């Protein structure tokens, strides 16, 4: 599974980077996106959902950042 590490990347650059990274994976495949707490975890999942991708889950790691799991959906 592809891991897209967006820790330390602010909004909206993190969302644009996620979009670019998702271009490289096939539809139906899943990816893990690492997001900082705060604005990134509030904004990026919602924006990716609006792009049409399927959000599968979200969990917080012991280090404090979040892991968003999603399935790429081709438009």
């Amino acid at each position, binding site marked *: 599974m592809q891991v897209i590490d967006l820790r330390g990347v602010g909004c909206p650059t993190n969302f644009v980077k996620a979009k670019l990274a998702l271009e490289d994976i096939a539809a139906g495949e899943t990816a893990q996106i690492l997001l900082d707490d705060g604005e990134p*975890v*509030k904004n990026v*999942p*919602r*924006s990716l*959902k*609006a792009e049409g991708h*399927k*959000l*599968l*889950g*979200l*969990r*917080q790691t012991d280090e404090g950042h*979040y892991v968003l799991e999603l399935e790429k959906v081709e438009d």
Partner: protein
Amino acid sequence: MSKAQQPTKIDLSNLKSGGFIKERGKDLFTVRLRVPGGRMSVPRLKKIAEVAEKYGGEFVHLSVRQSIELININFKDFDVVVEELGEATQKVASCGARVRVPVACGGCEYNPNGLVDTQKSAQEVDEKLFGTATGHHKFKVAFAGCPFDCPKSATNDVGFQGAIYPQLDKAACISCGLCAKSCVPKAITMGEDNKPVFNAERCIWCGDCVKVCPTSAWSEKRRGYTVRIGGKWGRNPLVGTLFATFLPEERVVDFISTVLEWYKEKAEALGRIRLGDVIIKEGPQALLDHLRKQFPDNTVTATIPPQVIETQVGIRS
């Protein structure tokens, strides 16, 4: 031979709706153009630029209520300016004791936060109520698409704020916790069963939970406008208070008309007085009772008077 003094002819009917504002010095006026909701088509913008270049000064001014103001227009050019702007499509805006051009945020077509179509509401109000004489004072309306409220709706005589009330389908929830994470007012927290717990009293109806929910477990139960009435800014600011909730978008014009009806009647013989000060005088319950007849499902049971903002300069009587 000296130039013959021709008498100046102006079509005074153009001035009736207002929008021509005297400037400092001789002969010059500002012409305030109507831009309901702040939306302007690109061709219209080009047309205005042409007319401004031909008859105005070196710049235009963007008013705080989203109008474009042509500066340094000679009063002798009023007729030709109105004609060249194309009066049918570009009416000048109003001033005085009338319903003003409504202000609105971008709405919901392209703005991801927008919950309701504020642009449509602003166009409707502009079409049906713009320029209506109140008999007392100015009357301002604003539309915010969501509770983040960029247009500062509660500083208007009637301010509308888009809202949705969320409901949860627990069976569809995958316990991801995104809703709780997104909920700024902390109306949603994760319970011991790892499912969301909703505290309705904390909810500001922003809909962020619905937008973020991956499985549509959160959905909207009600949608409409939160309505605050009696606000104003200026010398003695008031913040409008809550009179109606989840007002359907298609009832906005009726609602404002009902408020106007009450204002016209209750402000009789009080002179130049804004709606908020009339509410303080009459008590908010009187307006609530009037609204409830037409809007029983939306009018709140009780409210507080418009809130006085202490400016710390000048003592208020």
